[in-house]
């Protein structure tokens, strides 16, 4: 029916297959799948599977996974615009999972790592990498709260504007990583480069095509 080209190329057929499959898969299982890694991490931490410093290992892993999820959420639009792959229906789940992972990352830091309330405040106010990480988290709160159909209807065009805050948040998240490592390390810089690249794809220069 929609197949107008006489012989669609391999690439087109692959994209079509992906889109058709995506249409058939509901988004809700992502929430269940998304709960698996943190639960596994916690059990591993309890049973010695994360080495001798399980608190740091969990903290770091949750933060890194959250960054992956945020980056994945940034990939949805470019994938659709430049490759024709439509995964839009999964974006909300990915974004919300990123938020929950960051919350887990924060809770591990508060409850298992720093533990002492006065030190927590001092850290948030005095340590730039923590201030920045907290900022990234706080910016995501209104986004998580409005990640539902009712809010989209209620907010109208303002919803799109509001959700552009994720661009700021993810850059702050990567900056948080850059600032916390010791010495000159490449890994957090690669994340930042990927994020800036994904954001650049949203510039009008690339949009025109």
């Amino acid at each position, binding site marked *: 029916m929609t197949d107008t080209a006489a012989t669609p190329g391999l690439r087109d057929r692959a994209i079509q297959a992906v889109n058709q499959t995506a249409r058939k898969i509901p988004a809700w299982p992502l929430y269940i799948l998304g709960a698996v890694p943190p639960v596994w991490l916690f059990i591993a*931490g*309890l*049973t*010695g599977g994360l*080495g*001798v*410093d*399980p*608190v*740091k290992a*969990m903290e770091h892993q949750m933060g890194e996974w959250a960054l992956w999820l945020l980056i994945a959420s940034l990939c949805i639009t470019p994938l659709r615009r430049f490759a024709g792959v439509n995964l839009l229906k999964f974006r909300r789940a990915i974004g919300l999972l990123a938020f929950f992972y960051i919350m887990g990352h924060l809770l591990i830091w508060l409850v*298992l*790592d*720093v*533990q*002492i309330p006065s*030190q927590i405040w*001092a*850290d948030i106010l*005095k*340590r*730039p*990498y923590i201030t920045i990480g907290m900022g990234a988290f706080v910016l995501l709160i209104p986004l998580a709260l409005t990640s539902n159909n009712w809010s989209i209807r209620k907010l109208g065009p303002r919803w799109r504007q509001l959700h552009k805050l994720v661009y700021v948040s993810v850059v702050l998240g990567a900056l948080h990583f850059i*600032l*916390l*490592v*010791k*010495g*000159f*390390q*490449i890994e957090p810089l690669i994340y930042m480069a990927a994020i800036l690249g994904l954001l650049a794809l949203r510039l009008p220069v690339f949009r025109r095509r």
Partner: protein
Amino acid sequence: MAPIWKSRFKDNDVTPEDMYLNRRQLIAGAAGLGLGSIAGPALAAPEGLEPNPYEDITNYNNYYEFGTSKTDPAKYAGALTTEPWTVKIDGMVDNPGDYQLEDIIANAQIEERIYRFRCVEAWSMVIPWNGFTLASLLERAGVQSGAKHVAFETVMRPEEMPGLRYPVLDWPYREGLRLDEAMHPLTLMATGIYGKDLLGQNGAPLRLVVPWKYGFKSIKSIVRITLQTDEPFISWKDANVQEYGFYSNVNPEVSHPRWSQATERVIGSGLFGSRRETDMFNGYAEEVASLYDGLDLKKNF
């Protein structure tokens, strides 16, 4: 003669290996009940220094020449060739030259020292070192008057140390002490842990241990010791002068710009272990505070 430092911690404070194994088995049994990491700290002796198990000490290391993750050194340091090993001692000494490690050890009086090891990243563990005083080695080399500092250098072998591919620091790793710090009886040249030869990840075959300073001062796999007048090059200070100072004495009152130093995570205490309050000079104030009389420790961090 170097003054022999009388340890506050006697030989019998070290957990003998067989007892230590029993303790592990006990913990392993508790782990079966899902209590492993909760039961851990409860079994620790209430006072004195209870050494961490050998596995903790050999699997949780900062040795960036082998990679920046805590587990990289254990993974890659096996490739480090430690035989033969030569330490060049030069600068303001009467007997400069290349000292063979066997020769150094043959002339040394090896003792056991149980020290708390406090990392600048705000964690600590307790390590039963074997080694000899740096003072005894320096005396053998003959320190000339006028020498004020001791500079150290870590081996740099790109073919054996994958982390050297990355410019994390200005390699080779370098550290230094003031001469009086170097001559202090607490300052150790370690050759072993738990009576076994040091493994690569712990700085084999010869490393410095300065227990009242943050761990990065305790330079690993030393190939060169230089006596000099000027303050030595310090790799971390060079990388970030705002965050790492020459002294780097453990001090709960002086925060690192990126983290508080008031408390420390106790390695091996599990998921729910509590932090301990960091002691001034890592608990060695009685022995070393007088070295810094009149020095503003906030400025000279």
